[in-house]
């Protein structure tokens, strides 16, 4: 398990990185934390002509509150979600999700941007990004463009960046006191990959739900809104019936995929329970991570 040969570049700026990327016309790959990429290199299921290491790019590790936005550079490490007071204050859901993102050694190195760009169906962060309505800022030769999280994830390991674009930063709306969040998941072992993961964001006014985002990962190629559940909550009081109803509706029109290890029927079975849990957690203002 040793990787194939590749050329190595370590640009000092994102602009440089994008330029090199363009030169390789899709045969080069950006290297962020490497926690998902290097394993597939070691297994030799992926052999890019070149790796463009972003670890030395200036400014990509910045964490900044910009008015109503929390801006995370593409190279902000996953561990920062726990340690950064700015993130904790602006996006408590990111902080609450951190423990789900794998052990310390992985979070120390793994990046928020890298996990999002890798677009792994069992990863938690894509669900969080979609639930929070994050914006992906892509940088390419023709400059920058914004991509809504909803449009960013196209399928397994596939995002909507063009071959000559890189994910420059991610912008999360700063959460407000009237918002409630939760992340819960079902796993094969304690703290394992998500068989099903649910990220939740509620906006409440006088105990009525003004806005609801319930996003599931693990059941298919990309994060998916549970629209029926979301609709059922908006405008209503959050009582036991509303919770029961929303959780029941979570499987309405939702597609569940099987894999050789876990049947779709299981995912279908646990989703309502997870939605209920997320709602109960959010209502009790739980950001307490459930084990």
């Amino acid at each position: 398990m040793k990787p194939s040969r590749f050329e190595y570049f370590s640009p000092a700026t994102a602009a440089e990185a994008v330029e090199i990327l363009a030169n390789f016309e899709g045969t080069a790959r950006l290297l962020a934390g490497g926690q998902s990429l290097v394993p597939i290199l070691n297994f030799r299921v992926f052999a890019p002509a070149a790796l463009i290491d972003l670890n030395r790019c200036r400014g990509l590790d910045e964490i900044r509150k910009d008015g109503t936005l929390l801006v995370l550079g593409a190279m902000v490490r996953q561990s920062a979600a726990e340690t950064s007071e700015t993130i904790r204050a602006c996006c408590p859901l990111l902080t609450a999700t951190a423990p789900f993102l794998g052990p310390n050694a992985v979070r120390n190195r793994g990046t928020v941007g890298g996990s999002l760009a890798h677009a792994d169906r069992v990863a938690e962060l894509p669900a969080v990004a979609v639930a929070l309505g994050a914006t992906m800022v892509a940088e390419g030769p023709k400059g920058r463009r914004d991509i809504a999280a909803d449009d960013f994830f196209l399928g397994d390991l596939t995002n909507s960046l063009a071959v000559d674009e890189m994910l420059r930063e991610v912008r999360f709306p700063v959460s407000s006191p009237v918002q409630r969040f939760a992340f819960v998941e079902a796993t094969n072992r304690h703290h394992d990959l998500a068989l099903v993961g649910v990220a939740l964001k509620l906006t409440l006014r006088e105990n009525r739900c003004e806005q609801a985002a319930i996003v599931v990962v693990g059941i298919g190629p990309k994060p998916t809104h549970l629209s029926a559940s979301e609709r059922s909550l908006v405008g209503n009081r959050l009582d036991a019936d509303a919770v029961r109803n929303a959780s029941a509706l979570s499987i309405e029109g939702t597609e569940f995929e099987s894999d050789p290890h876990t049947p779709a029927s299981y995912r279908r079975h646990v989703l309502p329970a997870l939605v209920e849990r997320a709602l109960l957690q959010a209502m009790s203002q739980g950001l307490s991570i459930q084990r």
Partner: protein
Amino acid sequence: MAADHSRNEGDMIGRALPRKEDDPLLRGLGSFIDDIQEPAGTLHAVFVMSTHAHARIVEIDVSEAIRLEGVVAIYTGKELAGRIKPITSDIVQPGYQPVKRQVLATDRVRFVGEAVAVVIAENRYLAEDAAELVRVDYEELLPLIDVDQAVQADAPKLHDETTGNVLFQASFRTPRFDEVFASADHVVRDSFQSHRLAVTAMEPRGCLAVYQRRNDNLTLWTSTQIPHIVRTAISNLLDWDETRLRVIAPDVGGAFGGKCSVYPEELLVSFLARELNAPVKWICDRREDLMTTTQGREYRFDVALAFRKDGTLLGALAKIDCNIGAYPSFPLGASVEAGGAAIYLPGTYRMPEYAYETRAITTTTCPSGVYRGVAAPVASLATETLMDRAARELGLDPAEIRRKNVLVASDLPYTNAVGARYLTGSFDTCLERALAAANYAEVRRKQSGDRLRDGKLHGIGIASVLEHTGQGTLRYRQRGIVYVPGFDGAQVKVEPNGRAIAWVSQCTQGQGHLTAFAQIVAQELGISIDEVTVIEGDTGFGPYGTGTFASRGAVIAGGATLRASTRVAEKIRRIAAHILKVNASDLKLSNGRVYASGETSMSIREVAAVAHSMDARALPDGESFGLEATDYYDPQVAPTSNAAHIAQVSIDPATGLVTIESYVVAHDCGRVINPLIVEGQIHGGIVQGLSSVLSEALRYDQNGQPITVSLMDYLLSTSVDCPDMTVLHEETWSPGTAGGFKGVGEGGVIGALPAIANAVADALVPFDAKINRLPLLPHVIVELMRSSSGLPGGHESTALGERNRLHDSVAVREEHAQSHECIS
């Protein structure tokens, strides 16, 4: 029965001493295969593995690969066929068919991962580059994934030299079996399918061969449990003078049975070192390990237990099929699992009548071999699960039915239905101590109303288990396993400075031999363990022996060390007696001195000086120089250890995730040499069991493609899946073994499977869930709950609603269960 073997002040045996081997390992100075500084010019081997489960090799094209810079050579099976003899486990046993395995497949591949070619290059990276360029053209043949496919009349024959795919079969029946079974009041039966497991030692296999053309000498460092057997195999299969071969097992990063076979890679790397006149190294990577290291425990156990109304066990019937994969392992062969499965089934209970049929069947999957506990964990899973079912059906508490049937002092010594002798044991004591420590009665009372607490289902499970340990020559001769000697040896030597060194014929993979055996030597010679050095795993020193597996270390190597030490101690006494002018029998060895009654004494160092003629005083007439002895040990009766395990679990009814809440084990491995090490063995065994109950499973798709070749898909338990544990020691010394030792390596895993499975089944009693498949992954648990007749609502129900209904249904069923569940 547990005779009081009170310990003396100053005893070394029985002390919880931290290990002598720890220091270098803690500093990062361990010497595992890949840590050994290889000589300059060492070449690296990488194997080209079959991508098909069953296929004919049409052509292998290495032209592109061989041209690659840094590639030294590439060999295919055809080129080596005549030069390395095939590995053959020709067990001498009725119903056994030997099978040949070429070190590289020649014309046919029989499992995905079987090596078809080997690439040798200047480093591992280049070797992997080249391996990717080797083109192999296959003509696919029908794969046989499970035993049912393999035994069908029209199934292709996997090996030309056999008739059919059943490589071994045996059967047995006690004379009165039929009549007793027929007249039984109650029979419980089920078919248990155990799943294939990967041994997954943290250090994968590997070897380094260094050849000296000067004298045709070879030194092979290999990560093995059986260095002497590996040396003999190389000698036989490569026609190489055994006196020119030295096999060294350095630090070995776990083994658990996975390094208990002679592997093609060991033969090939040795061959290549001589062929290329260069050092050759091969390190197995994890994917390769999960595809090619012997796998374990894929059995089907169809078991029936017969009882009297009152819960008295009358007998057992077992039909056992083992999927042993593409080739038998060497030296243990195709019968070791199937045979063991049958022999291990009668456990800690009075089971007068017993009948079995057992078969070992070859399929197009990775070869299987012994894995910690071999068949005992699954045999116990079957019997202990059925014990619980019988209890519920007969209105007894699981503890009660065990109390009724477990062997007690008055039964001992006991000869079980297949003739295995249990000389001593503390079956009932361990059961009672475990029940007390787990607060069993209280837990049952709390549970009686409702198994659902804090939104989780709670269950408790008991297992009473037996561990066959320290099997000697007799057991291997009986089973016709000719390449496993069964004895081990030790050479103990006191140097002129009065310090002792012991060369022991086994090797250690973490079991703490270097400490435990030092305690034995120190005890016998009356010196401190700091003055004792134990060396193992090197065929260049000390006596020949069998190796470390099947819980035979303490019993057999420990016994050999004890006997050799005793003989050295006797010689010390003889010399001291001569010098001190007293009777040898009056002398005591302790604190590094030889004491006569009264004041007279001399130091062992002085005795050593005399023995080495470095002292004015002479040896007694007829006494030889030096202060050493070599001895071997082969216990006449294989000692049996026993234990009672009690697990408490909780289940998240919504996700099906199982949590082990607490774990208690009361065990008896005879005289304990080092409690610290014994507990470590038990902890580790239990977690390997826990891991295999909850998440581990090797899987093949319908074409025989392995789909669990990474640790992302092969799920080992981590620290957050495991509980702290309570371990209680009973010590009934074995009168049948030197020192009274019994083995302890496998008991943990044997008990963990049934204890945890029973605890889960207990938590799911409201659903009448019958557990006969592992692992109990969340989706399996959810299926068990949903398939339950009584649970209203399907997956459409919300968890909240489901929980309410679950609550009702639990309550209802509890009442129902109450009516015939008498709480102990």
